[in-house]
C-alpha cells in the first residue's frame, strides 16, 4: 500500500494548507491574462475564500450545519 489514505480531516487540512497557493495562481493568471478580465478578480477570490468554508464544512461533516452558522 504505497498511496497514503489519509483520514478525511487530515486530507482536508492539507487541502486548506495549499489553498493559498492555488488562489495566488488564480490572481497571477487572471492578472496576466490577455483576455482582459481583471475585473473578475475580486469576485473570484472572494468565492475561493468562501470555498475554504465549504472545505471546512465537509472536513467535519457532523458539524457542517453549525459551520455555516458563521454567516
Amino acid at each position, binding site marked *: 500500500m504505497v498511496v497514503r489514505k489519509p483520514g478525511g480531516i487530515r486530507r482536508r487540512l492539507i487541502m486548506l494548507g495549499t489553498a493559498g497557493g492555488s488562489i495566488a495562481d488564480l490572481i497571477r493568471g487572471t492578472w496576466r491574462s*490577455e*483576455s482582459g478580465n481583471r*475585473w473578475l478578480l475580486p469576485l473570484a477570490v*472572494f*468565492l475561493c475564500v468562501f470555498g475554504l468554508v465549504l472545505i471546512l464544512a465537509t472536513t467535519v*461533516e457532523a458539524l457542517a*450545519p453549525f459551520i*455555516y452558522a458563521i454567516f
Partner: protein
Amino acid sequence: MSPLARVAPLDRILLPVHRWVWNDFDRRVRKLLAFAEVESDGGRDILRAAEVTPDALLRRLYLEHAIDELHHGDLFRQRGAALLRTRSTRLRTLFNGTPLPGGHGLDDLSIQDEPDHRLLAFLHVAEKAAAGRFTIYRDLVDDDPQTRAIFEEILRDEVFHMNYTYTQLARVMPRSYRWQVWRARASRLWKRYLRVAAGIASVVGNAVLTIMYFILLPPFAWMARRAERREPVGWTPISRTRDDSPTGQY
C-alpha cells in the same frame, strides 16, 4: 406480511408522508425510478463484494443477492417506465440532459475495505429496514396491483437476504454476531445523522450562495456581458507568449 418484515416505529410515524408520496402519480413514478437506480447500484456493490470475498460460500450467496437486487432494479425500472407511458406527466422535463435519477445502493460502505462480517451486519440491518418499508409501500399501492405484485416479489427475496446475512454472520463471527448487528445499527443511525447534517448544510450553503448571487454578482454580470460582446466569434488564436507556468493551476 412476513413476520420478519416488521415496520420500524419511525416508519409508522412517517406513514402520512409515505401516503403523500405514493398517492400522487408523478411522485410514485419518480420513487419507482429512484428505487430502480438504488437497487441496481446496491446490486453492483454486492456483486463487488462477491468478487473480493475470500469465502467461497459467501461469494455464491453475495452473487445470488446481487442478481436479486439487479432484478429488483429492473422490475422497478420497467414498472416506472410503464406508468410513465400511460400518461403525460411533468416528469418528462426531468430528463433533459440530466443523468437518470439515482442514488447509490451501499454508498456508506467501501466494499473493498470492509471485512465480511461488517458487510454482512450492514446488509442484514439494511435489508431488514428495507423490508419494513417495502411492506408499508406494498400496502399503500393497493390501487395498483402490478406495483403491489412487485413489492410482494421483492419482499420474498428480502426474507432470504435477511436470513442469509444473519446466518452467515453467525458463521463467520460465532462469538460476536449480535454485537456486530448492534454495531451496524448504531453505525446506520450515525450515518443517517450525517446525511441529515449534510442535507442541512447543503440547504444553508445554497441559501448563502443564492444570497451572494443576487447581492454580489450584478455588477460583475454587467462587466461579463460587456466583455462577451467584445469577444470574437470563431477561431481564437492561441498566443505563443501565453504565460503557462507548469506549476500553475491557471
